Every structure is written in structure tokens, then in C-alpha cells.
């Protein structure tokens, strides 16, 4: 099993979620995140005082998948999250030792 984590632009979440659902992924976790990469921040002005806002709002999407699906899921996320402009985000995957469904106690791929 793999844990795929994607940092994406907030507005791309809906199309990513749609694509994963159509692919057959039945669950995911999203959280609001802040960060910067090559995009860097932007500046805001309040009563003439300029502030540089370094950390930009992003969405962190986490999805657990069975090993054979991992490459496809990563590709789907990349396709749907891409706008072609700077700040589109990153996707990475790490191996997962154990997954348990809390309600039933199912373990491994059964629990996905």
C-alpha cells in the first residue's frame, strides 16, 4: 500500500476529487495547508503598510491506495491539478506498513 500526498491549489481540489472518484477511489482526507515553493509569496497593503505574505494557502490531499493503483492515481492528480502556472504544487508517495479500518478491524488492502 502507498500513501499519496498531494499539495495542490485550493481551486483544483474539486476536479481532482472528481477524477479520483471516477477512477474508483472511495475516500480521501484533505486539510488546509500553507506554504511556498518557487511561487514565493505576495504582498498586501493595509492602511499604507505593506506586508509580504510568504505562506500561500494550499490544500493537502492524502489518499491511501493499493500498490498497483499508485502510479495511475498520481498521474490523475497531476493531470487534474495542473494549471501550467507557477504554484501548482507537488505530489509524492510513501510506502505504508499497516492500515486498519477502525469500525470493523479489517486490515491491509481490505481496509482501503
Amino acid at each position: 500500500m502507498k500513501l499519496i500526498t498531494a499539495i495542490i491549489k485550493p481551486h483544483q481540489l474539486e476536479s481532482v476529487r472528481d477524477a479520483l472518484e471516477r477512477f474508483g477511489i472511495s475516500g480521501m482526507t484533505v486539510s488546509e495547508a500553507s506554504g511556498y515553493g518557487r511561487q514565493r509569496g505576495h504582498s498586501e497593503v493595509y492602511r499604507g503598510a505593506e506586508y509580504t505574505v510568504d505562506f500561500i494557502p494550499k490544500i493537502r490531499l492524502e489518499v491511501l491506495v493499493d500498490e498497483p493503483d499508485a502510479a495511475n492515481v498520481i498521474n490523475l492528480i497531476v493531470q487534474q491539478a495542473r494549471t501550467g502556472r507557477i504554484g501548482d504544487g507537488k505530489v509524492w508517495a510513501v510506502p505504508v506498513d499497516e492500515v486498519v479500518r477502525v469500525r470493523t478491524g479489517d486490515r491491509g488492502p481490505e481496509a482501503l
Partner: protein
Amino acid sequence: MLDMEIDTGDTAWVLVSAALVLLMTPGLALFYGGMVRSKSVLNMMLMSFASLGVIGVLWVLFGYSMTFGSSVGNARIVGNPLEYLGLEGLMSPDAVAGTVPALAFVSFQAVFAIIAVALISGAIADRAKFGTWIVFTVVWATLVYFPVAHWVFAFDATDDAGAVTTYGGWIANSVQALDFAGGTAIHINAGAAALALALVVGKRIGFAKEPMRPHNLPLVMLGAGLLWFGWFGFNAGSALGANTLASVAFVNTIVATSAAILGWLLLERLRDGHPTSLGAASGVVAGLVAITPAANSVSPVGALVIGLVAGVACAAAVGLKYRFGYDDSLDVVGVHLVGGLVGTLLIGFLAHPQSPAEVAGLFYGGGFDQLGRQAIGAFAVLVYSFVVTLLIALLLKAVMGWRVPAEAESDGIDGDQHAESGYDLHPLRGGSGMIATATAAGSTRATSAEAAPTKSEELA
């Protein structure tokens, strides 16, 4: 108190105006609250509510008497605090102020005193001990607001022969500066006090280094809207009657404020590149402040000019704190002191002979006479308020201290001073807090938690 007939229409308008002006202080709390960081929103709003508490009580006990009692020794400095102590004698149907019951006038002026004090709190956001602020409101109202309001708002009462029977304050009667609703007594006064207080209390940790962004601009705009709404009571209500004077003040309160929005946004667009919502909300307040002294003495076109000048001047003035290095956190100086000066001094130029005040300013052939009176009134209040506030603030610094501990300031003053959070945006934190409280209270919930297996038992 002149012996006049009570007019029911006038009384209704003054009572409604008092309620409108009262709403300004919660409006100010929203305006200020939205501008601070989320970790100190409650303290910011509470400083305004503290003024609602403290000054409402002081006003009834001796504040009204110090302001509108007859001048002690006929010296025109301060009203006799004993004359209407506890509003003694004012319940009588014979107690009349103009054409309204004395207590309607008392109520209307009470809410003025409340907001004058609350305005100052914007200078010391995020960092001041709440207890010291409470004591400050008591001392400042007593030594600064009540006397200054006496100077500006207490007019002489005369008998039929024109002889003075009750002496009022020196700015209103000797200097005869025009201040319809409190450009000097409230805005220059609070602005100068804010400067003194900001200097004594000192800068916030990280001032001009870390971002201190407003945490909720819609709250700021809601507050500005409520201030404008309430300000119709402030200005048009100051006519103390439902009449032409009130209507002139009303329309001037619309047009000056509208023009100030445009002035502020225009300056921002030219200087910073974007017109901002904070700028529009600030423009509202700048325009309202500036038209306050002038609402009865200029034409609607004059009011438009005052608003436009105030919008531009205040938008330029809010940057001064970074240049001079004082942390007037929410720009009480830049908006209220500067706006108050703009309005008070421009009367000298723009006073219209056909206005209810019937005074001609420089532009209407009146010469420099009125401008001189306006300048004396404005600077007398500015200097007195600044000096006395400085002394009060230094004394309180020595006796009680102004600052919360640095760690409390960094974590957020709300938790340290009030043990509350403005927003429950992190349910996990709220949850563990409840359990800790239950444990402290020795509830059954804590007992059952003790009976549950511990981590080590479970592992064994």
C-alpha cells in the same frame, strides 16, 4: 436650565439619537476588533465595552454634573460636581434642557462620553493590562473628558435681561470656537490622548517588523457601517430638536462621509496601487470625524470639501507612526486627531453665513476671525489632553504597569487577560479544554475517566 415648554417631537428625536449614539460604541468595538489579530480580538472589543460600563456609571454619579453643572467659581473650567450629584433633582418635570426633558439631554450626552473614552483604546491594542485600562478610563474621564466637554459643550444660561445666570465653559462662551458635536471635545481630545498613551505604553512586540494584518475586514466594515448609522444621532441629534438644524447636520453627515470614502480610496489607488476595503471603512470614519464639529456651520458643498480633504489627509497621516516610531496601533491619531483638526480648522474657511450657525468663514468674506477662534479651541484641547494624559499614563505605569508579560502578548492577550478565545476554529483544542475543566470541578466525568484502563494496562 431654562424654563421652557417640552416639545414631544424634539424629545423623541433626542431619545432616539441617544440610542443611535450608544450603538456607536459596540460598532467601534467591531471596527477595532476586526483590525487586530485574531488572538487579541476580545480584549480589543472589551476595552470599548469597559467604557460602556465605567463611563455610564461615572456620568450618572458626577460626570454630568462636572460637565454641565454651573462653572465652579464662574471660572469656566469645570462644572460643579455636587450640583447634580447622582442626577439629583433632574427627575422633576420642571427640569428642562431647551425643549427636551433634562434627562433626555443627560442620556444623549452620556453616550458621547462613553465613545470618547472608547476611541482611545485603539492606540494600545494587543498589549495593555485590562485592569490598568479600567482605572485609566475612570481617571481620564474625570480629569480630561468632563472638564474639556464643559469647556466646549456647556453654554451660558442667561435670564430675560441677558445677564448670565449659569456659567458654562471658556471655549464655548469666551473663545466662541464652533464645535457642533465634538470635533475638539471628543476627536481631538481622544486623538491627543491616544498619542500620549501610545508613547507611554510602548510598541507591540514586533511592531513594524512582523505582519500585523487585520484578522477580519468584514467585521471592520460592519463596524464602520454601524458607526455611520449611529453618527446621525451624534450629529443630527446634537440639534437637540427635530428641526431644520438637525436636517442640515444630517445631510452634511451623508455627503462629507461619502466624499471621504472617495478621498481615501483615491489616495490609496495613487500611492499603493489598490483601493482597499480597510481604506473605505477608514474613510467613513475620517469623514464622520471631520464633519462632526462643522455639521451646523457649513453648506452641503462645504461638507463635501471637508470630507474629501479629511479622507486624503487621514489616509496620508496613518503612515506617520512608522516614520516617527510610535505604535498607535489602530491609527486613533491619524484618523481622530487629524480628522478632528481638519474639520475644526476648515470651519474657519468654509463656515457659511446662511448655515444655522450664521458665521462667515474666510472663503465667505468673514476674514480670519473665526479661523483664529477655531485654532485656539483646537490647540487648547490638544495640548491639555496630551499633557494630562501623559501624566496619568506615567502615573499608572509606575503604580500598576501597562504591559502584560511578553509571553502573554505573543500568545495572545485574550487568553492571558480574559481566559477566552474569540473563535473556536480548532475543535480539538476546545475539546481537551472541557475535560480539564470537568476534572478540576471533580465531576462524574473525571471519575469515569479514572476508571478507564490506562495505556500501560492496555498494552499489558
